[in-house]
């Protein structure tokens, strides 16, 4: 599918990313809740399920879910800043850059630490 010409710009793509990640997370949630509640009813099936996590495909899916959550989180912060902070575009760019920098540094630290 070709992207329509009027949609071919960063803000529209950010919107679509936010919508798709939100939709995927919303669809995943009931599954997530159901699996966790197995701890109450059938702990042995939960353990078998958690055992799947060593499978590379499942690892990839886990990565995908964390990625979706992170994308939706940062996209949401972007929207909240855009809507609620009466800052200039330049101030927002600087703020976003400093948050990204902080995450890069603290993320690198975290990877070293664990």
């Amino acid at each position: 599918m070709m992207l329509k010409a009027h949609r071919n710009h960063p803000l529209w793509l950010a919107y679509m990313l936010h919508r798709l990640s939100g939709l995927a997370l919303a669809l995943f949630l009931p599954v997530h809740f159901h699996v966790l509640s197995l701890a109450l009813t059938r702990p042995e099936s939960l353990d078998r399920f958690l055992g799947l996590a060593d499978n590379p495909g499942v690892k990839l899916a886990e990565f995908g879910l964390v990625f979706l959550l992170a994308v939706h989180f940062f996209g949401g912060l972007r929207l909240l800043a855009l809507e609620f902070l009466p800052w200039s575009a330049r101030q927002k760019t600087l703020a976003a850059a400093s948050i990204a920098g902080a995450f890069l540094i603290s993320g690198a630290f975290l990877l070293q630490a664990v």
Partner: protein
Amino acid sequence: MSDRSKLLEVSVWRGTGDEGAYETFQVPARDNQTVLDVVSWIQQSADPSLTYRYACRVGMCGSCAMMVNGVPRWTCRTHVKRVLRDGALQVGPLRNLPVIKDLAADMDPFFDKWIRAGGVHRPSRSRNDPIQQVPPDDPGRVEANKGIECINCSVCYAACDTVAGNPDYLGPAALQRAWTLYNDAKVEDRQAVLDSVSGAGGCHNCHSQGSCTRFCPNELDPLSAIAGLKRASARSFFRRGE
């Protein structure tokens, strides 16, 4: 004039209402030529039945907006050279509006929403009162000034996917108008402005896709105006507790 012999491949939407198809015309290329010049050439030299709309030809009246290669533009100030793709051009009626015929879209929904968003000026003084002084550097005035050069061309309305998905949504132009009124010291009831953009089709439906600001031919910023309305209505939500 070395360009005399060159031809442009121009496909133009033909049809009434929901029915229609693109029809291709060969139009002589010129050194300096706007999309409106091309459409006018077709109507004057190839097919006099082609329907389109324009008036001022200098970017003031807002009547000649069309979809050009899939993007909404004011055609009178869009140079063909800037938008040509492989010597071809596709011109259609504005998106998100009903088509009357060919390139003429029905602007009624656009203006109806302008009115629904409270776009009418409700003054705080009568003609018997002295004229209200508004200092040009007053913050509210500075904010309102950013939005008042709107020419109602409906380019933002055609660019907006939220309008496409939600027919009740007032759209960028009408909401930006409401934002200028909200910041106008001469408007008495600011809360009424907020109320008229806080209903089911109001500013809170905006997804900040930013196509309005990106394509506004006058380089206005409806995206930020709508964000301003969201901010003001959120403040009033907490103040009034609803």
